[in-house]
């Protein structure tokens, strides 16, 4: 199990010490050309999470490889580059350019930006096209805002993806207290934080059954318990996003809390908890010994209560 940051939730150049606590660093999404992003206001808080409409602000692939990548490589943390675009060719262009850089460990295809068509056919098309130009591990970052996320996940798997990143934000709207106008200049934005957590859990849970791919689980992870639940649902790795905004030290805190949660439930390490939700006998409080029927019932009752 590795702990990563969700793309766009940590800047390695302004918070290098926070990045060094991670097992791998995921960049903000890089597109072929530089983008300033959306006009302000770009973020808003709601009762259940935060909205952002940053708009894929990034320096463009050429400035990224020339100016940013050398500085990122010096951090000594594996670098995942989030790749974005508006056409299949955009993804190919960025991925092809990154293929020759050994300091880039993995490409994460941001296939779920609100500006990009999200139909499964398109996901498969993008993944297949990128697969043809790079040997690097490819993770497909998917939106949970589809009728059936397993369909998209299977399309990515069939097209040659090596893993899934689940989930991206979901579009939401927040209004000003008095003017009743949208708080964000763009109107709607991507909802992250606590509201996304059960949605992420469901997506990870269902994709774990539908594909063989490893899954980076993300969406509202703010505590060790949240991390444990995503692992149990089937995530093999985890990413922290919105939690960084209130505390740059979230990685180490969540790692410590997760260790305590695992110990309480008798898991020797995080990897042992992966997929626990799917085990036919269900979780028990005393792993390693034979399943105690009474204890199992008791645990189940607690979970339902």
């Amino acid at each position, binding site marked *: 199990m590795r702990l990563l940051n969700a793309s766009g939730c940590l800047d390695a150049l*302004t918070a290098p010490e926070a990045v060094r606590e991670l097992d791998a660093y995921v960049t903000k999404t890089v597109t072929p050309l530089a983008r300033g992003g959306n006009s*302000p206001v770009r973020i808003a808080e709601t009762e259940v999470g935060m909205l952002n409409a940053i708009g894929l602000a990034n320096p463009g692939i050429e400035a990224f490889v020339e100016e940013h990548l050398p500085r990122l490589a010096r951090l000594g943390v594996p670098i995942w580059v989030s790749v974005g675009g508006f056409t299949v060719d955009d993804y190919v262009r960025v991925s092809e350019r990154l293929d020759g850089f050994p300091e880039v460990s993995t490409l994460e295809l941001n296939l779920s930006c609100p500006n990009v068509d999200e139909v499964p056919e398109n996901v498969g098309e993008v993944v297949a096209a990128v697969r043809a130009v790079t040997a690097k591990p490819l993770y497909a970052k998917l939106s949970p805002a589809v009728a059936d996320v397993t369909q998209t996940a299977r399309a990515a798997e069939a097209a040659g993806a090596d893993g899934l990143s689940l989930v991206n934000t979901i579009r939401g709207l927040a209004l000003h207290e008095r003017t009743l106008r949208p708080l964000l200049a763009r109107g709607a934005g991507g909802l992250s934080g606590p509201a996304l957590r059960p949605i992420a859990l469901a997506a990870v849970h269902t994709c774990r059954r539908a594909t063989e791919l490893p899954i980076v689980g993300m969406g509202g992870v703010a505590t060790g318990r949240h991390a444990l639940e995503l692992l149990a649902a089937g995530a093999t790795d985890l990413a922290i996003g919105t939690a960084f*905004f209130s505390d740059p030290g979230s990685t180490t805190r969540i790692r410590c809390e997760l260790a305590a949660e695992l110990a309480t439930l008798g898991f020797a390490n995080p990897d042992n908890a992966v997929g626990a939700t799917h085990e036919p006998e269900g979780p028990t409080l005393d792993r390693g010994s034979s399943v105690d029927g009474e204890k199992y019932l008791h645990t189940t009752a607690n979970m339902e209560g």
Partner: protein
Amino acid sequence: MLRRERRSVLGVEAVGPYTLLRVARGGLDPGTPGQFFMLEAPGRLLPRPMSVCLAPPGELGFLIDPVGSGTRALCGLGAGDRLGILGPLGNGFRLDVERPVLVGGGIGVAPFPYLSERLGAPAPAAVLGFRSAWHAEAAELVPNAEVVLEPTYVTDVMPAGHDVLACGPAPMLEAVRRLAARAQLAWEAPMACGYGACYGCAVEIDGELKRLCVEGPVLAAA
């Protein structure tokens, strides 16, 4: 090193419609005037950026206008409550100025008590604009201040030939920069993180987007 600390509230005082939140400093550097701290707002997902208003020994004071859910939650804190605090962050005012004048509007006067203190004696002149006499009670925190109330604007009475250090609503800052090209302006924007992670606080200035938490909040007018 970016590390969120936990500190106790020492006291909460009303200043006109605003609230002065006094927090135990406990080893935190108050930073340069104009720099800010992210304060955990009880019950809210995101912390709120607040510039340092006062920095007496052992304390950090923040002047807060309860305009939204987060600022109202902060104003509802009481002595002994604890909160997460991260900072100081961003770039403050340059203090190497010869003839400073502080120009502020409304809650924009928040960093001026500490700024005035750090600029040293004699206290620099300050021109402060408010929408009412009640709001203008905040001017009592700023030495050597001239107060104007709407419909008079600070730009109507701002002295010429000074080094302007300004903080206030965006239209006021735009008006100030038209009159004083060498002014230092402290801008504000909603922020999620305060340390460059979220790109939420980018504002467009002269057609260029700047992250206020990293490149600001104090920027040169020209």
